[in-house]
């Protein structure tokens, strides 16, 4: 019996490895097709964007200001310079306004105003509203501290535009981000309700006149590995989005249709903005779009120790999300597809760090026992190694054809070295971090289920 189970497991893992390889190939081909089809388009043409407000809907940019966000002032200046005809900026301070944000508000001469706050999604109490007469499209909300998701939902409540660009804390928006994100929406406004783009690493870049200017690819191995990771996420998102109709959005920024986001109750209380990437699965006829152009920039940890900490936090969050799959209360509800889709993707991401090495190990064991023959073993090793290398290689080639690519050939060489590192040491590090996190994971309390108010409820706070 044990022999049969081991034999079955060996074949199962071999099948997993081959299917993953084929799936990766399909995603890579899909991503290549998306890039080729998008051609040299850089988002919405400026002439149309400047002239026709009816064809170019306004966008509300919701930014969460974290307490330790020291460059929030510079980010606000960059946001004010966005290349889009009609937008407003909503900054939500989750907790008391930080000194950095207060300095920026003083510079922009913001003043307290009494805006009507309609909690279409239940959030923590909003304790203050501020508006800048200089940058007339800037509103700052101060609310009771809760969570980033709660802050984003408060921003969703206050946003006036039909489309909302949700920006995570410490993320810079590219100057052309809104034009790029809105281009697929304008092309198909009835169906596209979610739009995402490439998230790039900001380490080694400088900000000039509110726009991120690319320098050299950092030679720091941890950062180069993170850069490659970001490019890999972009390829997988670009490829998965047309195949699934909804998709995993890279970190940083997501553009959503406000009414649809309110319909599903906004950002889940235990989730992030990427959970809304599954919005198209909540109703037929909707789809998401991924734009293979840089839209956001984030700084990544510069040491492996910090990378490990960030990785472990993501694993812990993913495990917490996976537990929700087994929670009957949380499965109920009209919009489970948003939460379950997100949970599934996070589970897959966590498990892939375990399953890939496990597939190789079990295939080796099966080969040793005679359960797997040489061709199958070869297929497993080729699928796992070549699959990952192909995604990394296509990611680097994708970066080569996008704006704001690293200028030098040495940068490309560093990225390919990072790909070699990723395939060898990187997988082992990821495996170690995942296993150590899972073994130390403590059961957390059940998350609070927030019942959304009916959209249109006119409750004054």
């Amino acid at each position, binding site marked *: 019996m044990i022999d049969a189970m081991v034999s079955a497991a060996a074949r199962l893992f071999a099948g997993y490895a081959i299917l993953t390889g084929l799936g990766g190939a399909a995603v890579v081909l899909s991503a290549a097709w998306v890039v080729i089809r998008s051609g040299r388009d850089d988002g919405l043409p400026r002439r149309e964007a400047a002239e026709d*407000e009816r064809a170019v809907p*306004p966008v509300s940019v919701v930014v969460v200001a974290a307490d330790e966000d020291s460059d929030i002032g510079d980010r606000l200046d960059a946001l004010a310079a966005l290349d889009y005809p009609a937008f407003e900026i909503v900054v939500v301070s989750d907790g008391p306004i930080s000194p950095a944000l207060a300095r920026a508000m003083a510079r922009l001469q913001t003043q307290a105003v009494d805006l*009507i706050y309609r909690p279409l999604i239940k959030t923590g109490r909003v304790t203050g509203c501020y*508006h800048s007469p200089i940058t007339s499209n800037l509103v700052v909300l101060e609310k009771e501290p809760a969570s980033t998701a709660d802050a984003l939902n408060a921003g969703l409540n206050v946003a006036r*535009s039909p489309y909302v660009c949700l920006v995570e804390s410490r993320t810079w928006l590219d100057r052309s981000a809104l034009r790029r994100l809105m281009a697929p929406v304008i092309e198909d406004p009835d169906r596209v309700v979610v739009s995402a783009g490439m998230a790039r690493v900001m380490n080694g870049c400088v900000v000039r006149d509110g726009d991120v200017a690319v320098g050299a690819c950092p030679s720091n191995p941890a950062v180069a590995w993170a850069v490659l990771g970001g490019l890999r996420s972009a390829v997988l998102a670009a490829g998965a989005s047309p195949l699934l109709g909804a998709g995993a959005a890279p970190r940083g920024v997501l553009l959503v249709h406000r009414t649809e986001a309110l319909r599903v109750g906004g950002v889940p209380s235990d989730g992030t903005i990427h959970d809304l990437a599954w919005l198209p699965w909540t109703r037929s006829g909707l789809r998401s779009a991924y734009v293979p152009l840089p839209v956001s920039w984030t700084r990544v940890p510069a040491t492996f120790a910090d990378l490990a900490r960030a990785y472990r936090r993501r694993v812990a969050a993913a495990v917490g999300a996976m537990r929700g799959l087994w929670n009957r209360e949380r499965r109920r509800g009209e919009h489970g597809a948003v939460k379950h889709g997100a949970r599934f993707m996070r589970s897959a991401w966590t498990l892939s760090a375990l399953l890939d090495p496990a597939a190789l190990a079990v295939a*080796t064991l099966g080969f040793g026992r005679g359960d797997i023959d040489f061709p199958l073993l*070869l297929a497993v090793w080729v699928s796992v190694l070549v699959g990952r*290398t192909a995604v990394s290689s296509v990611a680097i080639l994708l970066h080569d054809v996008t704006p704001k690519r690293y200028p030098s*050939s040495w940068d490309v060489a560093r990225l390919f070295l990072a790909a070699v590192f990723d395939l060898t040491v990187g997988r082992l590090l990821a495996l170690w971090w995942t296993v150590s996190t899972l073994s130390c994971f403590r059961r957390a309390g059940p998350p609070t289920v927030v019942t959304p108010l009916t959209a249109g409820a006119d409750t004054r706070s």
Partner: protein
Amino acid sequence: MNTYTWWAAVGWGVAASGAVAAGAAACSLAWRFVRRSVLAQRDVRRSAYRSVVDALRAAHEGAAVPDISLGVLADDVFLSCLVDAYDDGRPENRRRLTAYAERFGYIERLGGLSRSPWARHRMRSARWLGRLAHPDSVADLTRMTRDRSLRVRSTAVTALGAVQDPRALTALVALLDGQSFTVGPRRVPASCLTDALAAHGADAVLSVLPRLQSPSPAVRATAADVLARTPHPDPRVRAALAAALEDPDGEVRARAAKAIGRSGDAGAAAPLVKALSDRVWFVRLQAARAIGVLAYGRAVRPLVSVLTDESWQVRAAAAAALRHVGDAAVPALTECLFESRDRYAKEQVVEELQRTRLLLEQVEALDGAHAGAAFVAQRFLREMARHGATAVLLDALRRHPRASVRRRLAAALGTVDVPRVLTVLHDLAEHDRDAGVREAARRALTGRPPGAAGGTAARERAA
């Protein structure tokens, strides 16, 4: 387990992944190398050609032109250097550029290229003919406006806009009449056509004006767009735009409103008032913006009513327009807040006004030289505070640098029955650095009607 076989599998896997990575790296590096080489060679040629172009510029008109090889003439880099050197808007340089284009045979060569089977070549031909803007290229450009490639058609239309020749304008107007930008496989983007017509300036206006009566809504809308881009003082234009505000198509009405706003003619603004109550939101938006640009004071009451529009963009445009109108808008706003029975409408009005600088400007007007304006501002601010806009006013009450403003603001807010206001007045009555402000705050609190919230306690405390 056959260890050798296992290592063979691993080795093949590593070799395959290495081959994939090496192939991708080679592609990437080759692409960068080729691109860098092409750009570097282009820079070298550009530097060399600049000296040739400088020699041409130094030569007098009609003088012998230095020999230039066919290879150089066929190079786009040389052509771009030549055009960049002379395309500065000055008529004499334009004449010289035209002469060189004829002498070097560019018009014939590019005209021949316009018949190429490759769309890329035809587009290149259209682009350069547009930059050279030679009158003899009109026929070729007109033919290319019916090309099977959209990019070629768009480039040709843009090029016709650059050729300041009546035949080019005729061709563009014919395109407009043919509605080629609306439907069909040979359409032209409307924005291209509008840009091209607008580039002809005043000449286009009188040609396009009759198209405002075209049976096609798309033609009328484009005609209105052209008029918006090229303001013209002719009274027929004003009359035609006023008539276009009654057009059955919303796009036409919106663009006509925009055109009136851009004309800068305040006398043409009267018909915009009716457009503020149009059934289509973007017509109302353009009308509100146009009224704001023209600072048309007679539209104040309609603008105030638009502050409760269902579209926030229209509301914001109306609020901005009221701010442009200035002090003349304040009495109507005050009256709206005082008399309207719709609480939600009033809250919407207050919210929109808080997003403009109007409140701060009225706070400054409290201390203005004109007593009437100060009185009006006082009434307005009192009503705003009554309807919830206290944060801005209390901030001014606490922090305004001029004591005279704080005194008058305290007097204005004295009758506002809002707990936050009373709290700040109490605070001012005891702690403000200016004696006059303290006295004004005390009077504001003690002068409250009997039974008003905090009134009795305030009087006792003051005593």
